[in-house]
């Protein structure tokens, strides 16, 4: 047996093994349907797909008009927009997880929450390192924000500590202070420390000194003009001051404060002791950098990252996929990040959009794949194909294909043909997509499908409209024949409102022209404009507009005109009618003649008689007129 993904990203296979709980019927093998992209079917993720679609389109349109700084600001804004959508989606999924009572659903939603959370974490880091490209100094501020944003257990602990009557007596009091220090949130840490100072007069002096150290810690702020050298100088002074207090045993009586002072000095062991409070190696990395290398350069990150991970994990556990992805980012290995994400994440949404953004930052241009065009396009094609396999999201996929210059059009052509057209309205929407992109082949095919459907439903008017829209002459001929056949059978036209309003579209096919003109003849006749009607009728035959099979009907139609009191056909016109009749009868082989029934022979005889009498009257009349 072998497998291949079929259209619609679906795999169907036959098996003898029944699904759990399924009833086993003898002799009836089971067919399993496997979907490749399960995430597409999540109600909540649909919001992610739809909302990010708008951002994606906005980014493609923003193309290149801005240069330098404002372009960067724009890209950062786009990146933040994507993240806010991920967050919104995550919050909603979280709400679902806590509100459901079904344990299986709860588990499913919680898994999604952690996946989305990881996505946002990775995206945020990529934004800092690749989109923002923060310089030394500012880089660390961004990384601090990144850690604060993603370590959230703290907030609940702090709330708990602050809400109790004597915060400093709470068992987690010092943990809360530590967390603030580890995250570099000096103001928050000092605020908590003041509670201890006021509750415990004996440690007031110590608190005051520690508070002062925290206050004095030199921090680079965004928009600040101080140079890195100035910053480093200040840092050196502050560091020495901390060192002094530690060495003279100021904090010796309080191990909590002593350890905080060691953290301020960037003591790796002291920081590592708080492992439980940091929960992750990248938190450790950032804390370590804050207190030992505040002006770290982007290129130096990789060394600290690797050693932080080694120290933190300490050989106890091996890195998980998320760890490898973040590590690759710290190493500025963009392709590695994308590759690992593609493997680890369950959908293409993340890599497709991230890669596209990075491509717009001009970070991926040198890289070409040995298949397809480039990585951006490859991932977008995969993502959009997934959307197209969904009964409703396919509309989003169209715009993604549009922005794949190499293969987008081919993919769209292949996928759009598989969209089921259950209503005319849907057909019109698909048609609009094809017409806007000059996909003539698909336009014809859609119109043909719709025309065929209409014919099957006996809606000839609709069918004709569809074939006129596709300019499908052959099909218009076919439908015109159906109209004429109906007329021959019933003696009256159906769908007059349509035939009377053909307008210029009448010229699409000869048969359609004939149908329109023939109907015009009937109208003229009905309005008693006999000579015009006669002229038109004759013209239909002599100009060979009417199909031969229809000539007899036309000649019979001429009978009432021939029998009028007034002479309508002139002698010359009557000769032509006679020739038409003779052409018609002579054209048939002997064999056919043999089969012609009596009724047909009678018709011909009546016609001949009528023509002869009309000719006589016309000659007399014309002779008289000339004479007078």
């Amino acid at each position, binding site marked *: 047996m072998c497998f291949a993904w079929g259209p619609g990203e679906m795999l169907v296979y036959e098996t003898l093994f029944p699904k759990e709980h399924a009833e086993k019927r003898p002799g009836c093998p089971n067919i399993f349907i496997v979907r490749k992209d399960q995430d597409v079917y999540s*109600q*909540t993720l*649909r*919001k992610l797909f*739809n*909302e990010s*679609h*708008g*951002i994606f*389109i*906005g980014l493609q349109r923003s193309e290149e008009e801005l240069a330098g700084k404002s372009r960067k600001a724009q890209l950062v*804004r786009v990146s933040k*927009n994507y*993240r*806010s959508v991920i*967050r*919104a989606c*995550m*919050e909603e999924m*979280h709400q679902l997880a*806590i509100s459901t009572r079904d344990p299986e659903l709860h588990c499913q939603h*919680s898994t999604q*929450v*952690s996946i989305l*959370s990881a996505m946002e974490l990775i995206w945020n880091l990529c934004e800092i390192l690749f989109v923002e490209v923060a310089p030394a100094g500012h880089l660390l501020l961004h990384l601090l924000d990144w850690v604060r*944003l*993603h370590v*959230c*257990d703290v*907030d*609940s602990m702090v709330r708990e500590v602050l809400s109790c009557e004597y915060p400093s007596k709470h068992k987690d009091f010092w943990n809360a202070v530590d967390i603030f220090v580890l995250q570099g949130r000096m103001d928050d840490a000092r605020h908590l420390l003041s509670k201890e100072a006021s509750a415990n007069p004996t440690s007031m002096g110590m608190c005051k000194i520690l508070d002062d150290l925290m206050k004095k810690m030199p921090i680079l702020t965004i928009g600040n003009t101080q140079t890195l050298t100035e910053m480093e100088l200040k840092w050196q002074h502050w560091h020495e001051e901390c060192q002094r207090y530690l060495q003279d045993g100021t904090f010796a009586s309080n191990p909590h404060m002593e350890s905080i002072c060691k953290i301020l000095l960037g003591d790796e062991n002291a920081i590592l002791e708080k492992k439980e409070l940091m*929960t*992750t190696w990248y938190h450790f990395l950032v804390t370590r950098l804050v207190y030992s290398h505040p002006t770290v350069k982007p290129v130096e990150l990789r060394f600290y990252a690797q050693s932080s991970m080694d120290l933190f994990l300490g050989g106890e556990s091996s890195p998980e996929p998320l760890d490898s992805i973040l590590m690759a980012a710290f190493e500025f290995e963009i392709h590695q990040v994308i590759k690992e994400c593609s493997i680890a994440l369950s959908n293409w949404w993340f890599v497709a959009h991230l890669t596209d953004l990075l491509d717009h930052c001009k970070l991926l241009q040198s890289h070409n794949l040995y298949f397809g065009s480039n990585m951006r396009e490859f991932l977008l094609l995969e993502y959009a194909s997934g959307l197209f396999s969904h*009964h*409703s999201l396919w*509309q*989003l996929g169209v715009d993604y294909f549009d922005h794949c210059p190499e293969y987008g059009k081919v993919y769209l052509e292949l996928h759009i043909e598989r969209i089921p057209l259950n*209503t*005319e*309205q*849907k057909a*019109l*929407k698909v048609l*609009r997509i094809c017409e806007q992109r000059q996909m003539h082949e698909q336009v014809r095919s859609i119109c043909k499908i719709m025309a065929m459907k209409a014919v*099957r*439903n*006996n*809606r000839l*008017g*609709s069918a004709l*409209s569809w074939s*006129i829209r596709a300019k499908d002459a052959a099909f218009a001929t076919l439908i015109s024949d159906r109209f004429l056949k109906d007329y021959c059978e019933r003696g009256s036209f*159906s769908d*007059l*409102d*349509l035939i009377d*309003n053909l*307008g*210029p*579209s009448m010229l699409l096919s000869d048969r359609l022209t004939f149908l329109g003109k023939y109907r015009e003849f009937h109208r003229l006749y009905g309005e008693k404009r006999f000579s015009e009607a006669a002229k038109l009728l004759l013209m239909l035959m002599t100009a060979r507009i009417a199909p031969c099979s229809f000539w007899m009907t036309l000649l019979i139609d001429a009978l009432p005109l021939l029998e009028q009191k007034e002479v309508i056909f002139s002698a010359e016109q009557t000769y032509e009618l006679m020739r038409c009749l003779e052409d018609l009868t002579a054209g048939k082989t002997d064999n056919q003649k043999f089969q012609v029934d009596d009724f047909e022979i009678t018709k011909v005889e009546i016609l001949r008689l009528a023509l002869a009498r009309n000719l006589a009257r016309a000659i007399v009349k014309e002779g008289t007129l000339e004479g007078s």
Partner: protein
Amino acid sequence: KRRGSGGSQSGRCGRSWLPFAAAGGMEDFSAKFVSQKISKTRWRPVPAAALQPPELFATGSWDNEENKISVWSVGDFGSLGPNGEYQGEPQLLCDIRHHGDVMDMQFFDQERIVAASSTGSVTIFRHHQNNQTLSVNQRWERAHYHVDPDTPFYGGASCTGVICNNPEIVTVGEDGRINLFRADHREAVRTIENADSSTLHAVTFLRTTEILTVNSIGQLKIWDFRQQRNEPSQIFSLTGDRIPLHCVDRHPNQQHIVATGGQDGMLSIWDVRQGSMPVSLLNAHEAEMWEVHFHPSNPDHLFTCSEDGSLWHWDTSTDVSEKPSFFHQGGRSTTLLSHTANQSVISAWLSNNPTKDRMEITNLVPNQTLSVNSLDVLGPCLVCGTDAEAIYVNRHLFA
């Protein structure tokens, strides 16, 4: 227990970067992504005596495996922003499964909603406000159908339009049929078989006994139910081009003025008292115009939405020169001159004075790429639904 995060991240990275909030002209809109493509949006009518704005609207979805009719509230439980503006997004009150795509939908009265399905059925749903549920009140299963000449099989034909005038309901469909139903009657009161040889796209009441239909070959027809003939009493048509018409609405006060929207995005204004051609043709959208609505109490304003993803507000009420300039900022804003024939009626929509006859046109949802399928206006409120699975609500249209 290394990765404790997940969940409970709230507040910090809020929705301050909401993409459409940044788009021009969108400040007054609240948006909600609803995980289904929206085909119809309708405000629940407010009682005639009431002055307050509408609080509930209904939506219908299409193209989903399972489609739904949903009822939403925009009531005042949303918080007020720093400048007192309304910030809350629409809240889902209840929904119910709908078999097939929701092709059209109207409120029959305060409690009942009539929905037209792509399966050919027409259903009345009742909204129970005491316990916020929806239930099926009445259904005409085969209101629209095709007859296969070779087999006795009757296939459902999409019901494309429905309009109510209590107690009457008129439906039209792809089968070219017109049905007149009465709530509480099990069978159609009147059916015009093969009323149109092409697809009927929309229907509206002209007067109590007369309806207007538009079809896929560019015709506007008037049907009079007092006549027993199964023929339209009048046919209007676009010149020669046969561009399909998709929507129709009648001026609320001057019933002879009718607006239609076509496949090419063109807005046509007709005077049904005279002529057989439109009074004016206005170039508008770049693709199908799906709906057109005169503002029910302020008919100098007209709203249209389109497959091209735009929602336009047409304003004939003021002279352009007097407009404050900030009005132009919302998206594309153009001034068009209409090409009108000679008219004696004084109506902004029919007038022919080219210097005065200016229209202010504002695109209310710029930067939207997927179709805006439906819109509804009532009082100061507008609601629209899109193929991008979002609904937008504006509660300060004329602010």
